């Protein structure tokens, strides 16, 4: 994973400068050129800005290929990502200049709307990459997710043993704690980082409110069981937070990539249509 600072500051903000100067030039051309019928996407300025924007979009798509190509030579991947971020963000402003700020309920504005979703999800992605890993590391506290899961399995096993001689009430709680505890799951539950119906929490509640009469030996077992399940619950919270962080790092990409392809498709339709009915 490339840390955001490394690509944002790449070559002393080279691509930020490129993006800003392109934008500045475009604004100047836009303001200076005042064709007789008024500014529009079909003026020469409009065609020019549109060509730049379309070419940029298709080039940005190329990152998806470039990042998989480990043998690639030329500019570093870091440079690519840096350019990708700054030029992509610049499109948010370049495209309205192309269309002379004309929008409507049509496939042309659809292309722009989709592109906005891509750009904004990308910006969120950068933000997530800047913020989430720190929290993620802090949450993990030097333990890997795998180790945490292993620990849960161990606790489950210990719970089974601890409950073996206890009445059914406890056996039932342990079975609940094991079988009804799910990690991750749906899109929503992964991103929420919580499980309102967690079997372990339910088991802990029922153990703490147990009214079963127990002898001393059994009471010792009960105490041990409660301690185990309480530890498991803490561990689960930690795991779920970790899953959530991981989800946040993945989420934007699930939006970014399909919408990027959707943008390309809409862009192709846009270009086809404006020349078909020129």
């Amino acid at each position: 994973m490339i840390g955001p600072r490394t690509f944002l500051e790449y070559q002393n903000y080279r691509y930020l400068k490129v993006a800003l100067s392109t934008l500045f030039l475009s604004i100047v051309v836009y303001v200076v050129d005042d064709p007789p019928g008024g500014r529009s996407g079909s003026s020469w300025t409009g065609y020019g800005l549109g060509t730049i924007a379309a070419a940029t979009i298709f080039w940005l798509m190329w990152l998806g290929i470039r990042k998989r190509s480990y043998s690639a030579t030329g500019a570093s991947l870091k440079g690519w990502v840096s350019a990708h971020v700054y030029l992509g963000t610049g499109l948010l402003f370049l495209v309205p200049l192309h269309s002379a700020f004309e929008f409507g309920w049509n496939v042309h504005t659809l292309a722009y709307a989709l592109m906005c979703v891509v750009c904004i999800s990308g910006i969120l992605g950068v933000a997530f990459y800047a913020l989430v890993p720190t929290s993620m590391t802090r949450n993990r506290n030097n333990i890997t997710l795998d180790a945490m899961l292993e620990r849960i399995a161990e606790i489950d096993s210990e719970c089974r043993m601890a409950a073996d001689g206890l009445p059914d009430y406890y056996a039932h709680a342990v079975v609940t704690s094991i079988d009804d505890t799910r990690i991750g799951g749906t899109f929503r539950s992964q991103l929420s980082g919580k499980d309102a119906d967690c079997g372990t929490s339910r088991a802990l509640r029922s153990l703490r409110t147990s009214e079963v009469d127990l002898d001393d030996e059994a009471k010792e077992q009960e105490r041990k069981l409660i301690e185990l399940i309480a530890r498991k619950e803490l561990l689960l919270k930690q795991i779920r937070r970790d899953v959530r962080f991981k989800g946040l790092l993945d989420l934007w990409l699930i939006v970014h990539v399909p919408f990027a392809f959707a943008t390309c498709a809409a862009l192709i339709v846009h270009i086809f249509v404006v020349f078909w009915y020129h």
Partner: protein
Amino acid sequence: MKVRLTEVRLRPTGKKVRLDRDIEVESLFVGRGPDNDLSLKGLTISLHQATFRMADGRLYVEAAAGQEVNVNGLVTGGERIGPGDVLKLGSWELRVLQPEEGAEVDVALEYEETDRGQSERASLEERTTLGLESGIFARRPLAWIAIGTILIGFLLVPLFWSPAQSPWNTGDVSRGHAYVESDCQKCHSGFFQAVQNDDCMTCHHDIGRHSPLEMRMAELDNADCGTCHLEHRGRQVDLADLGSGFCSDCHSDLGGKLAETSLRDASDFGEDHPPFQLALVTNPLLEAVSVDVTDDLVEISGLEFSHLRHVGKAVTGRGDSKQYLQCGACHEPDAGGLYMKPVVFEEHCQDCHRLDFDATAPSGFTPHGDPADIRAKIRGFYATRVLSGEVKDAEAPRRLRMRRPGARLSSEEAELSRRWVESKVERAERRFYERPGTCDLCHELDPGGASDGGMGVAPVQVQDIWVPGSVFSHGSHAPFACVKCHPGAAVFDPEPDSALPRPEWSMKDSIPYELILREPTTRVSNEAGDILIPDITVCRECHAGADAWGGETVPSPCSMCHPFHVRGNGPMGPSVTSGSAAATSPPERSGEPAADAEPTAEGDAPSIHEAHSDHAAMPANHLGVSRDGYVGIGRADADLPWNPHTDLFVRLN
């Protein structure tokens, strides 16, 4: 009862071993607890799950209180069982067997942990779902779905089914084109090609070029319509509104761009616009001249008229009620609200100025018209009297007065009648033509000028549209009194009729707006030749340039008054020679006068094209032609360069 319990164990090698033990019990207790006869591991099994019992040589299984047992897949509280039955307890399977021959047992039970389950970790893994993507909810399938949806929904379907093309529409078309909005090909006739001028000119076939043909301004005449008129920008957008800079690009320094022009530069109505010139056609076959308005400029129309003697007078009009003569009594706006209809004798003059020729005869008046016709009508009037025996005139010969109607005239009587009729005609003529007569009140007399050689009147040529290079709408200025722009025509009787309330415009103090700045009596017109067209300063009191703002003036782009496309210049398109232009585009009713005008031009008379080669000349456009088809006539000086009796007017259509 004696029970043989056989445990089937799976060795790590995968081999199964059977371990038998025989016990004798009253009832066989089965459960998770260690105190059971058969203790089975597994938290899903109750401490005491079930009891096996013999009664009358039959084996029964009974679930412990609050528990259930699963026999052959059916959950039950207890039932009779026998060899072949299978019970499920947690991960264990209990099978009832037929006791072996020779074995001294009542019941044989075999138990085996069949559903050993996975390790805790494997089971946890099973309950763990990581990663947001699953099934089609993943980047790749979602991308394909998005691409497919968009390409099919917005490209393929619309390509083959045009009603689905509405998302292709970049914006609503302007109101005037809305009726063809759903039919893209109406304008976009060719695929992958811009809308052609021919597409526009299918409907706008007579859209005029900006400059006269001979100017050959290819840049303007061949330009794509779409260069200036951008469609699909919304219903309310005016395609003709091109902003203030459009005209001034050329017209701010036209001389520098077109050496041959004598048009003066203009770039802003408020600040940079020449004074109005009036277009006066001195001879329709020769030249229309634009003249500057000077104090000594007069219109020679052949009429005499005084606004001073009319406006503001209390008269008895067509009805019996008395009223003040106001502008509207003679000047009525035309149907389009642009200009004023011509003043017509019968409608606007006759009520007061009836052409009576015989005070003794109530029906003795003639319609307005050619003096020769009028003479013939009067002659007919008296001749009819003679023939019908209705001569009452005391001065008439007795024989005519005593005549019986219908009797044949003797030759002597005929001569008497002729003399009498002629004397009456002469008297009527004197009444008409001798000062203070009737006709000479308005007309310049022309003795011998009538078609019958008698008294005639000079031809009348009233200028119709004075500033043909622009469009002016009286209708849009209706809220303002006429006096605001035409003060020279506004006067009011200094001694008004006290019985009649005065019109509002005549009382400065009661005028509801402060726009009227001029006194109505500054210079009241007493002559027909007075030119009462306001000059540019009058317009500028309200109208400023297109970019004016501040709320006190009307921002007025060039197009408010000047149409870009002048129909009379021929249709837009490549410049061609004037001859073939006339052939390919026959002039409209209001179009070029060339085709009809040329044949009447005799000898060396220059063609209309040459006549109009000076751009400063009044273009022979639809504005330069009065609504009744005559070229407007006016003269800057009194010497007519042509003979009004023979040249007269050229009919254009």
